[in-house]
């Protein structure tokens, strides 16, 4: 049985057949389930591609896109500076692979720092399991009664440290179990599957009682902590401590900078012609603005929120990435933006997503090749030390050889305990340029550099007859012609 070709099936799908061809295909499909399956597969793929690629956006989207195109077109046709191209969604290279599939939740500034911590821990986010159990631990009434009785008797030996272990055993999991990312487990101390449980780590508390001098006395607790934090940060940045610098200025409380003013609509005359206006991300207004401490006279720089040290952020510093090679980070502004800018902590400058930033500076620069920055190799101190050691070794050896050249050798008269060393006298065979030119050669049959060339033999002088008569070797007229035998002389042995 001959099956239908893919051309027939495709044309039948597109309705391009007619007449006998259509009758043949219909008749075959009515009896051949294999060809029906093939045609169903083709139709399924067509439907999938139509669902994926036939994007039919709303008119609002196309209107907004057309406004941007209009700005470009007007600028190009009138010779004005071309505005940058802006996209309302991130480009493929700017997408965040860790972004949630769900739209972001609205900020809850009324929850304060606790809300920020809970948000980062995963509470209230669909698809992300909280790092801590959301259920209270199970209680044993008999055990509680026993402990209460022991407490009344004053026996505290039965009390053990309250831990959060074995909570997962009691929690009823209804649905698929989500596995947490590695960095969350590492940060929370949760053992990975197949890994031995580690003992609980008590959070370290740094105490700085010994540095509390008169300068920092009579300061509130927060101010003292701020002093120590800054000193620790300065010490971490530069290993050299401050020696005799100006003393720290007294601190005063400064209110946090006010939130940026909302975008006020510009007047039509002042606004740029048809340039798309990108809405600034909403900055939640803090109900209780936090207090920042800065030294008097010093410029107030934005300080990181104290919560930022507790939140499970992934570091973007290259040095820290090298220290933790298991952490996979993505160098995107989404990651660089602290969470408290979204969760309602301290007010921050408006954060602009990358896809709302201009894609191009101007249209002329679109097709230019993107240049990659050439990485600069900075020599490390260890490499510099090794290079200095190698240079010093070679130089010292050369100097030693030079000094030994001027010392008299051991077999020379006047030699001292310091025996000299001379390089061997090198002679280049067969001729030596240092030898005199008239020195006899060892083998006269061999030509060497000292053998004079034939052109250097004296040219016979005297007057040459112009009539063509023969002359001898001295130039005098000869009566007989010189033959080769006369020239060579008698043959020995004849």
């Amino acid at each position: 049985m001959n099956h239908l070709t893919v051309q027939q099936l495709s044309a039948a799908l597109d309705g391009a057949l007619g007449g006998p061809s259509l009758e043949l295909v219909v008749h075959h499909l009515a009896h051949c389930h294999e060809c029906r399956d093939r045609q169903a597969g083709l139709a399924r793929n067509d439907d999938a591609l139509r669902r994926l690629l036939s994007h039919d956006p709303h008119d609002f989207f196309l209107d907004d896109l057309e406004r941007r195109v209009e700005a470009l077109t007007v600028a190009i046709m009138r010779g004005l500076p071309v505005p940058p191209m802006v996209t309302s969604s991130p480009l493929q290279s700017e997408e965040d692979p860790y972004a949630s599939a769900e739209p972001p939740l609205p900020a809850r500034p009324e929850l304060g720092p606790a809300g920020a911590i809970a948000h980062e821990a995963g509470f209230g986010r669909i698809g992300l399991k909280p790092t801590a159990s959301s259920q209270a631990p199970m209680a044993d009434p008999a055990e509680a009664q026993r402990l209460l009785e022991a407490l009344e008797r004053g026996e505290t030996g039965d009390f053990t440290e309250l831990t959060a272990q074995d909570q997962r055993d009691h929690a009823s999991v209804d649905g698929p179990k989500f596995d947490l990312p590695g960095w969350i487990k590492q940060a929370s101390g949760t053992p990975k599957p197949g890994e031995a449980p580690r003992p609980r780590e008590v959070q370290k508390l740094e105490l700085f009682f010994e540095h509390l001098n008169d300068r920092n006395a009579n300061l509130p607790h927060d101010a003292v902590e701020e002093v120590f934090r800054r000193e620790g940060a300065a010490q971490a940045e530069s290993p050299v401590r401050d020696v005799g610098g100006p003393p720290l200025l007294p601190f005063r409380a400064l209110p946090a900078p006010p939130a940026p003013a909302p975008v006020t609509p510009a007047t039509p005359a002042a606004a740029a012609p048809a340039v798309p206006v990108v809405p600034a991300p909403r900055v939640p207004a803090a109900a209780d603005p936090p207090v920042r401490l800065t030294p008097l006279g010093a410029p107030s720089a934005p300080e990181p929120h104290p919560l930022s040290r507790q939140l499970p952020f992934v570091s973007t510093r290259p040095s820290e990435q090298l220290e933790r090679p298991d952490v996979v980070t993505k160098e995107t502004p989404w990651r660089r933006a602290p969470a408290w800018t979204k969760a309602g902590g301290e007010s921050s400058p408006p954060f602009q997503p990358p896809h709302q930033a201009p894609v191009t500076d101007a249209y002329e620069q679109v097709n230019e090749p993107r240049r990659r920055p050439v990485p600069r190799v900075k020599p490390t101190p260890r490499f510099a030390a090794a290079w200095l050691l190698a240079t010093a070794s070679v130089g010292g050896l050369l100097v030693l050889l030079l000094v030994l050249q001027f010392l008299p050798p051991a077999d020379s008269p006047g030699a001292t305990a310091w025996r000299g060393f001379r390089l061997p006298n090198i002679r280049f065979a067969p001729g030596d340029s240092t030898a005199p030119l008239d020195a006899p050669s060892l083998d006269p049959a061999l030509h060497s550099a000292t053998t004079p060339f034939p052109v250097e033999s004296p040219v016979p002088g005297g007057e040459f007859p112009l009539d063509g008569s023969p002359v001898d070797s001295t130039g005098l007229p000869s009566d007989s012609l010189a033959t080769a035998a006369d020239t060579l002389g008698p043959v020995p042995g004849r």
Partner: protein
Amino acid sequence: MRVSPAENLWGVPVSIPLTVTAVRRGGAGGRALDETPERPWTEPGQDPEWIIAAQRGDVASLLALVNAHRRPLWRACISITRHLGEAELLFQETIAHAARNLRAAPVARPVLPWLVRLARQIENAKLRGREPRPSVGLRRPSGEPWLAGARGSHWVDDEQRSLHAFAQLHSDDQWLLTMRLFERLPYADIARVTGIPVPRVMNRIALAREYIERVHELGEEAA
């Protein structure tokens, strides 16, 4: 130049040239530009008038042309780039390139095939010498997440295999399938737009479908 305040999506007033606004809204005696031509791929419609006016420097005519063909051009950009953000960028680049090269625009023929050809050339020029885009992105080409919902994960797998197979096709075959599947053009119109004979159009579309089906089967076997 007189300007007329208008509002964008977020309610912020922007300034648009009065002439453009009047033409777009059909006021001031102009014709409403929401009337898209019935057969924009094969019939020129008002394209020659707009092109001639735009070549003389009339910005409103060029914008009217863009407005008339924005939806099929957007679909073409989506099928070429398979990404929402990249399609936006390609759309703007195409119109900007067309505005710079209006003298090369066809006068007696429909403009939409010329615009799509520009878009394909720009995309090929951008990807020349670089790594190709991933066939399946982090999200759907429409920007939605790959969530299966009630249909099950195999639904998403089928879509991703089809999209991957489509991305592996030659750009000409991709374009033929796009005109057939998304624009729903008959073979004769596809041949007229692309300049390829009808039997060859039919054969290439059939072979492209067979290739996608074959890649689909291989993916299912591997799974």
